[in-house]
């Protein structure tokens, strides 16, 4: 556990939550220099082990915030309602929303009103996606999965899905974006496809990808 006053990554680097990459890089360099273990600022303020923890936290903050994908995921997990300092500008939202809990990001499954043993099939995935405020377009853009396939997945329209080998990759990507258990998603969803296939000998999973 860090002995620092608990700060989010932005506060740790002392940047605005809207800061651009370049600002974040500069801020990281500035903090590294400032809290240099051999410098005067830290002398008499931090113990060596505390300083090492601070350095690790700064590094983690930098690594997360300069990677657009990691940063989006971090923002969504730590500030599900938007960053508090951004929300302050919007009085209506600020008045309505309680302060987010910094340490405990909301679980997307419970946030969608589902339980841990809900089967991850189309409708459940749609609920989780909507509770996470993600649009199909956004997911299509980030994963490069076609809109058609995404719609088929959510509608459990198994006959139009691409081949199993592609589906495995798509479902893994989807699990990452939705922040759900990837193993469970694969098992549940592909299990659903198998159930559907075995229900009638006429049904086939088209081996030719529809992409």
């Amino acid at each position, binding site marked *: 556990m860090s002995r*620092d*006053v608990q700060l989010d990554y932005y506060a740790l680097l002392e940047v605005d939550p809207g800061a651009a990459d370049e600002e974040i890089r500069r801020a990281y360099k500035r903090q590294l220099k*400032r809290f240099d273990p051999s*410098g*005067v*600022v830290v002398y008499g*303020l931090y113990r060596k082990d*505390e300083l090492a923890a601070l350095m690790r936290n700064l590094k983690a903050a930098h690594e997360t915030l300069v990677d657009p994908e990691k940063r989006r995921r971090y923002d969504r997990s730590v500030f599900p309602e938007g960053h508090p300092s951004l929300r302050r500008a919007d009085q209506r939202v600020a008045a309505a929303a309680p302060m987010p809990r910094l340490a405990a990001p909301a679980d997307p499954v419970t946030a969608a009103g589902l339980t841990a043993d809900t089967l991850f099939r189309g409708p459940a995935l749609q609920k989780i996606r909507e509770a996470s405020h993600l649009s199909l377009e956004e997911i299509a853009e980030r994963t490069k999965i076609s809109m058609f396939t995404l719609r088929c997945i959510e509608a459990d329209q198994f006959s139009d899905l691409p081949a199993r080998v592609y589906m495995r990759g798509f479902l893994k990507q989807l699990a990452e974006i939705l922040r759900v258990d990837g193993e469970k998603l694969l098992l549940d969803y592909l299990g659903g496809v198998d159930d559907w296939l075995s229900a009638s000998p006429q049904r086939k999973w088209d081996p030719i990808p529809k992409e």
Partner: protein
Amino acid sequence: MVEGKKAGEGPRLEARGAEEAEESVDLEEASEDGSGVHVDPPSLAGAIPWHEEHGDRLCIAFAGGKGGAGRTLLAANLAVFMSRLGREVVLADLDPAGMNLHTYLGLDPLLPTPGSMLRPAGPPRVDKLAGLNLRLCRPPRSIDPSDHEMRAEVLTMAQSLEADVLILDLGLSADAFTLDTFQMAHAGVVVFAPEPAAMERGYGFIRAALFRRLLHGDDDPAVVARAVLAADHVGELSTPSQLVSALSGAHPHAAEAVRARILSFFPRIVVNMCRTRADAEVLEGAVSGLRRRWGVSADPLAAIDYDDAAWNSTRQRRSFMIEFPGSNLAQGIERVARRLLLTSTRRDLRT
């Protein structure tokens, strides 16, 4: 030029113990009915006299840090500058170990004879400086560093004098009198220098003031916090915010009060004798470090350049604000003065 006054003429003071106990009850009630959190300083156990009726008089206290960082020099010259801005200023020398404000102002030291050392010291002495709206209040002779009675007497005398601004040099020791007076002032200033020993001493004083603020006294939050810390055998609670978290389960009111006391603590810091740009950046670095490490928000008053005007004016026993008004040092004091004159004297506005 010399304006003597007897200590007895200062208003008499009542012990503050009983009054403080009542305040602490208020504090608990206030948090219970959700009507907000008191940010009053904690009980000071009647250790020092302090006038509640300050009126609009701004009180600035210099304390802590390492000897030689420039605390006394800056206090004396800040007083000179503020008096030149038209303020009526009283300076009080409450530094028992380094009673030297007079030296920086060109006043003569008070030299005792062997015989006078055997007699009672007598009342504090007040000197007016020629051509300035500035008076210096000091003990009648050098005192024993543990002579808190004489320090209290000087403080009482200084407070009884008519003034717009009261500037105290409390010295560098972190004794109860110094810590409490530092916190009762509207602005408590700690002078750092960009070298390890001075940084350690500066942080050390702020830490001591913070701990006293959180843990000293007979009111409930302090008692509860002390009990929680005493039970913490492994010493895991190494930051004030961890103390607040530890309290928040079983003692939510105490946690809230402790948190409010951390938030309302607002030490001002100056980094003196900066020779490089990196030295000047120590000011913001220290503010950032204090916030991270203890959750304390410190006010960065100024990074002041190292300047030959300091030793030059000191050698001549003249104020550098008068001898070297264009120096970097004088400009630093002007920045400090401007910031401090914006300080509110209303306690309920302190943040």
